[in-house]
């Protein structure tokens, strides 16, 4: 059986930021759920590892958190993107796209294209 790929170092943070950007304030479970949905169960994610990451992002000032009530009226902690976070997201998206484009070009090159 083929193993599910691990989340690439650093990409999980990008996914979290993008999720918060797209959905607005979310609690941890919501973020985990969303990542799972979008990746279509291809990624093997220990959902618990999300929490240390969230704390790290908070320390870096990219997100802030506060207590709130969840859909079913439980106490849950909601995370929200800050201006710094949005800037970080833009930068990292740009970097990622650049990297992806370069890699894509390498894949597209055929032998006859080379001078």
């Amino acid at each position, binding site marked *: 059986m083929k193993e599910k790929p691990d989340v690439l170092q650093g990409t999980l943070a990008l996914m979290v930021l993008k999720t918060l950007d797209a959905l607005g304030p979310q609690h941890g479970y919501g973020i985990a759920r969303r990542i799972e949905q979008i990746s279509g169960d291809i990624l093997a994610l*220990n959902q*618990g590892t999300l929490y240390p990451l969230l704390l790290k992002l908070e320390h870096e000032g990219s997100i802030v958190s506060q207590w709130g009530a969840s859909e079913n009226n439980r106490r849950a902690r909601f995370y929200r993107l800050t201006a710094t976070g949005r800037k970080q997201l833009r930068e990292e998206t740009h970097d990622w796209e650049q990297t992806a484009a370069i890699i894509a070009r390498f894949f597209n090159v055929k032998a006859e294209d080379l001078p």
Partner: protein
Amino acid sequence: MRFLRRFFIRLSNFTTGRRADQRLREEMAEHLALQAEENLHAGMSPAEARRQAALKLGAAQAIREQHNAEQGLPLAENFLFDLRYAFRMLHRSPGFALIAIATMALGVGATTAIYSVIDATLLHPLPYPHPSELVRIEANVPGVGAHDIGLSIPELRDLQNSGIFQYVSLSFYGTNNLTGNTQPASISSKSVSPGYFAVLGVDAQLGRTWDPHDATPGFLPDVVISDGLWKRAFGADPHILGKSLRLDNDVYHVVGVMPAGFRDQGQTSDERSTDLWAAAGFYGDPAPPPMRGTRFPFETIARLQPGVSPEAAQGRLDALVASLKKQYPADYPSQGAWTIHLTPLAETLVGKVRQSLMVLFGAVGLVLLISCVNVANLLLARASARGREMAVRQALGAARMRLVRQLLTESLLLFVLGGISGFGVLFCARKFLLQFVPESLPRLNDISIGWGLLAFAIAVSVAAGTIFGLAPAWLTSRLNLTATLRQEGRGSNGSQRRSRLRHALVIGELALSLVLMIAAGLLLRSFWDLFKVQLGFNPTRVVAIETSLPNPNDPETDIYHTATQEAVLLREVLRRNRTIPGVEETAVSDRAAIPLGHSQGDRRAVPLFREGQEVQGSQPPLIDTSIVSPEYFHLLGMTLLRGRLFADQDVEDTPLVAVINQAAARMYWPGKDGKGEDPVGKRVRLLGRLGRARQDWTTIVGVMADARTESLADAGIPQIYLDIYQRPAKFLAFYLRGQVDPATISAQVRTQIQAVDAELPVFRAETLDDVLSSSLSVRRFSMEMVALFAATALLLAGLGIYGTISFLVNEQSREIAIRLALGAQRRNILRMVLRQGLTLAAAGAGVGLVVALIVSHLMAGLLYGVSPYDLYTFAGVTAVLTAVALAASYIPALRAMRLDPITTLHAE
């Protein structure tokens, strides 16, 4: 920036101890609930829904640890945690902790103590700004074998104008009589060029020093005094400036008071505590006119231009010397090869004690090493006891590095606690300990025990703890999990490696202590030989008391200018001294003639010219001169070999006479066939110190047997004795032999002397036995210290071998029990254990002897009368070490022999 922000938040969390644990737990509970709910919707049973949710979340404990790590600073947190744990471990085995800490306290404390001495004397010998710019200037005439002949005033000016130096200064140390206050006192004083303090770079605390550019032929009327003299003689009078004082009957004014901490530079402790400085140009009264050939045997020191190295300065100086020689060929004959040599001042001051101190530092370093080895050994022994603990912790998932870190923290804690306690003991006992440091050590007063030293102690402990804690930590954490857990510490895989290291450590320890003991043994034998040496004179029941006659700048005002004038005083004082109850004999001499006197600086060797053997431009060998009264020889019990002693008819108007010792006879009159010529009746001429007054021929009238009056270690120093009634001397020592009380004799003699001349100071009454013993002080100090360290080392090594053998016995108790059960003789068991001890001792002694041979070769210069490869010392010390090793092994061996096989085997 983001990284920094994160770091600061973590740091603040760490320091405030904030925990986000509660928050995480709530979040995870919420997460699980939401996931479980969803799973329920998907149709799972409630139990299955919760199980799947937990699986998806992952290992809660790992997440929490990761979260905590993100929250704070894991390294620091772990360190604190380890530290707490280490404290608890020490608390649980107080015996072990106490021994280890005490051992380290001993090692670090001793090292720190010696370091404090070295720091003050060798590392910072000059308490002046920019000490590396200070140099001593020496003029040599190697062509005729003369060294340090001094400089003349024109030469001094050439140096000043050379541009190599900022300032150059002559200085001449002596004593002066300070009168006019209360009791006349003899004070240490220096006659210097006005630039002296500019050279040192120190200014007065009150008033001023002189302008370095002051030009004066003779003495300036202004003097600078020390803080000590200011307080002692003038009661710290704030209006001291401008007040006058009488020095050798000349009047001077005080212009400045030096700061309290200021110490003069110099070779002897007397010179370093100079109390008064007078400035002179040295080319007018009382000095002769400035001629290029008129050199003063003074010390010349200078401050180099900033940024000029002594080597570069020497190069420029050589060029200057060459051009001077071309310019004044008559003053610098080419066969003399006149040169000027620069030496960094710091080197000239500490040269003598450097070797002694380095030996001490080496010895104390060995003690430190041995204490470290001992503690490392203890740690290893504990490692076997803790094998199971380590295995359990590893089984629970502790990483090896983590265990090493924890063990290292424990050993570091031990070492640092030891270091701090060592420093604490040192600090509390500093007054007591400083008594043992000989006074002749340079800069003794500057030895301080403060924060710098504490930092040194801690740094040494941390370094030692890291080095000596690492190996035990590494070996402790290295184990075979399953084997250890199954065997329950009955000896594990790692223990083989550990015991090999332990053996190596004990062997090293034994070797090091052997080295120390051999060094101590050699020093002890040297000291003993010196102590038991045939003196050639009899110092018992003799007291020497000093006085000094004024030496005014104008000879016309000197009431003791001629020998005849002085003879009146001397004969009267001697007559009066003989009337003191208990006194049997009296004599008088100049200060240089005090046997083994403290004032070695007074010893001035002068060239001795023999009649008919003068050679132009060459200098004959130097000879030590002593000026003595006729009774001196008999009072000191010295033996006349040939000719006669001084007699009453030898006075100022009769031909000059002298007595020499055998060494002088051998050196100056070796004879043609090597048998020696009779020097009695030969005539000589002495130059230098004895001044312009009489350059007449002196006839040798007698030859004395050699006596060790100049140096205990050397019997063969050439001496010439002159008659004090023919050659007046200013610095005098009166001798009294008999049943006198040294405590009160000083006052009695003072009364007698001042009854003749009330202006004469009387000071420093000492028995010759005391003088003799203090001449050995540095030797005694280093001998005692090294012996103490060696004893400590032996004790530690004994403990080390005891611990190792006990441990071996413990480890082999099962094997021994089986042997006993199978009928082995108890005697054989004893022999087996002792053999193990002996093997270690033999290996240690073997290694130690090789190292000791190298070390003793290096310290040959400190030895007297004993070869550095002295067979008795080497054999004796090896025997002692073996005996100690045997004794230390005997106790565990006895225990092994008395082992009860039944109980032992049941216990396993």
